[in-house]
């Protein structure tokens, strides 16, 4: 829990900086964040985002299952479920390839947690939803296309 506490402190300090920077119109709020994998989350393309999470060139894998709708009526809420059948899965990242910032979330699993993550993401437009799995020091990936009729990013 010490790591979390440190993050909270940094977050609180960062918030003040952000408020000033936003008021001055100089900075996007996320730029003053600490402890969070900023490079990966602010990457504007899939390649940089994958590099940011230490998976520059993941191998395609059939053992990763992505459950998501073929057509999402509302891009603001797209249910995505990733199941990794790869033994020793330690993390699962979810990317929406054509979002302004493709990396949506990176989930680290430990202590008996299975290779499974279920969540809901936003998608700006029709694109591939990609899962990147780290297992035993190697990275694997799979993707599924989701068609979006109404985008859920910005307006």
């Amino acid at each position, binding site marked *: 829990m010490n790591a*979390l506490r440190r993050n909270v402190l940094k*977050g609180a300090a960062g918030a003040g900086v952000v408020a000033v920077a936003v008021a001055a119109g100089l900075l996007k709020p996320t730029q003053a964040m600490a402890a969070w994998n900023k490079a990966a989350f602010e990457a504007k393309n899939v390649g940089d985002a994958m590099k940011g999470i230490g998976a520059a060139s993941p191998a395609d894998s059939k053992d990763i299952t992505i459950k998501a709708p073929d057509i999402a009526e509302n891009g603001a809420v*797209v249910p995505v479920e990733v199941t990794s059948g790869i033994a020793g899965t330690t993390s699962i990242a979810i990317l929406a390839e054509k979002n302004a910032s493709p990396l949506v979330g990176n989930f680290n699993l430990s202590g008996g947690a299975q290779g499974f993550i279920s969540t809901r993401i936003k998608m700006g437009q029709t694109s591939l939803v990609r899962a990147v799995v780290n297992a035993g020091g190697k990275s694997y990936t799979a993707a599924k296309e989701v068609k979006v009729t109404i985008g859920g990013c910005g307006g």
Partner: protein
Amino acid sequence: MAQPMRIRATMAGDLADVKVLMNHPMETGLRKDAKTGQLVPAHFITEVSAAINGAPVMTAEMSGGVSKNPYLGFKVKGPKAGDKVVVSWLDNKGDKNSAEATIG
């Protein structure tokens, strides 16, 4: 500021099935307010951590790309009914929240 969070944890065979619903606006910082035309400042959860009986099972980093009022589901092998699940999150403004539930 922090709003309640809901956790449901049930045993499904030998796996604990944990479902978490967090209350959060998850603003990306890219959306414009329909009335004023101004960008709505980014406000989203950046980190989530979950522990069962004090042992960490899942830590996540996320961006504004996760839907409003984030839902998170994961499965853990090992816990028994009656074990305690604690989930906490932290957002980009330094707000945080934590909740606990008992596996049923």
